């Protein structure tokens, strides 16, 4: 099918989310601020849960809240990501497939992204992600060549920078927000920090 582009911001936050809760399964939604049609540009993500991924109420609540926020900020939900607690198994769980299915109902080139924990380590040269798309009524592995991570080297170094300064602690997922509602699950502060590192003015390119 079509191309999928993953921005540094989205990748970094997903990675931080998985790093923040290494002993749990985590999941989240992939967002796009680009108009529909053509390649899927994943420009941001919202980390959702790190507990009880398969229980309905909080997932439903989170989906509704993110939906509303997307409307307000001209973004669309274009995919779902998950990292399993058991690192050796990065296959989509029934709950992952269910949520991805729901997203597909609203977005016909939705993607399902599984984070491969075994490939996550400092100095890893390969993006630790496995991407699925909807094909012939099921979720099939996407051709690696249609998945773009622009400025991969830069993204890697930014992620390493964030991890070494312990910034995964700054990330707020929806679960953490429910524990303390003064915390911002849209992660405005962290977004700003990451975008500053990405900007060409940083001299990193």
């Amino acid at each position, binding site marked *: 099918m079509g191309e999928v582009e993953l921005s540094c911001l989205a990748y970094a936050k997903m990675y931080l989310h998985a790093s923040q809760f290494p002993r749990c399964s985590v999941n989240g939604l992939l967002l796009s601020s680009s108009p529909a049609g053509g390649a899927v540009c994943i420009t941001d993500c919202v980390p959702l849960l790190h507990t009880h991924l398969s229980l309905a109420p909080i997932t439903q609540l989170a989906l509704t*809240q993110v939906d509303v926020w997307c409307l307000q900020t001209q973004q669309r939900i274009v995919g779902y990501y998950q990292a399993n607690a058991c690192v050796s*198994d990065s296959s989509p769980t029934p709950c992952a497939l269910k949520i991805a299915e729901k997203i597909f109902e609203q977005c016909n080139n939705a993607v399902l992204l599984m984070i491969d924990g075994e490939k996550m380590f400092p100095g890893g040269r390969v993006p630790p992600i496995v991407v699925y798309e909807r094909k012939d009524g099921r979720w099939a592995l996407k051709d690696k060549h249609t998945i773009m991570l622009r400025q991969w080297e830069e993204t890697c170094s930014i992620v390493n920078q964030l991890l070494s300064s312990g910034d995964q602690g700054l990330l707020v997922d929806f679960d953490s*927000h*429910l524990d303390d509602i003064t915390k911002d699950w849209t992660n405005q502060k962290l977004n700003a920090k990451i975008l500053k590192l990405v900007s060409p003015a940083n001299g990193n390119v």
Partner: protein
Amino acid sequence: MSSVSELYDVSWEEMRDKLRKWREENYRNSEQIVDVGEELINEHASKLGDDIWIIYEQVMIAALDCSRDDLAWSCLQELKRQFPDSHRVKRLAGMRLEALERYEDANKLYDSILQDDPTNTAARKRKISILRAQGKSSEAIRELNEYLEQFVGDQEAWHELSELYINEHDYAKAAFCLEELMMTNPHNHLYCEQYAEVKYTQGGLENLELARKYFAQALKLNNRNMRALFGLYMSASHIAASPKVSAKVKKDNVKYAAWATSQISRAYQMAGRGKKENKCSVKAVEEMLESMQITMS
């Protein structure tokens, strides 16, 4: 690199007390425990008296959690030297093997403990943890059920079993485990709320009503539990929207949902006071509540 005591301006006694607090409340803040514990051991071992042995144990486990095998090994050596035939120390050695993914060797060690002492619950639980780590959920569930037949009062085990069932989408059995926990811990709002979430997930009118009742119970026990508050709102709204309920039930649930809405709005307003960045979340909640009302009416 500055020491913990320098960075946070704390004395060795405060560090020791912090470790005790984390130990007693069973926190898994392993990186912190390693930072504080390593310094305490290296700089102040002589002052700790007999406390040092339990600190070695605590730091060793935290070190395993952070892949600090060097630190775990040295703690283990100290403990082995002091308690040469201890089952408790043997179990720690087993945990180190688990951390190195040497599961067969770990199992052999635990089996030898159990041969000596068949009632050793710690060794049995480690064997179950190995099954979990290997992704063998059904075996872990089976073993844990067998364990609980013998040790029916083990709260930790009941909770572990409920988690395993939830992961396997076996909600009825997860609910059963949570019922056990609620019976023995009637004041624990988290168990009520988790039970309600499981019931909600199971779906159907009866389960939704149970869910609503237990969300309400959780709120009675802790009126700041946001999950319970949202859960109450959602379950009451779904019941009110169902064509199968009587007019009275519908009216009651509309009232519950309205109450929940006002509490939610109030909570977010208080949270958003004076914080610019929270306007996103507060506004999102207001609109969300509005949109949910439309879809559920």
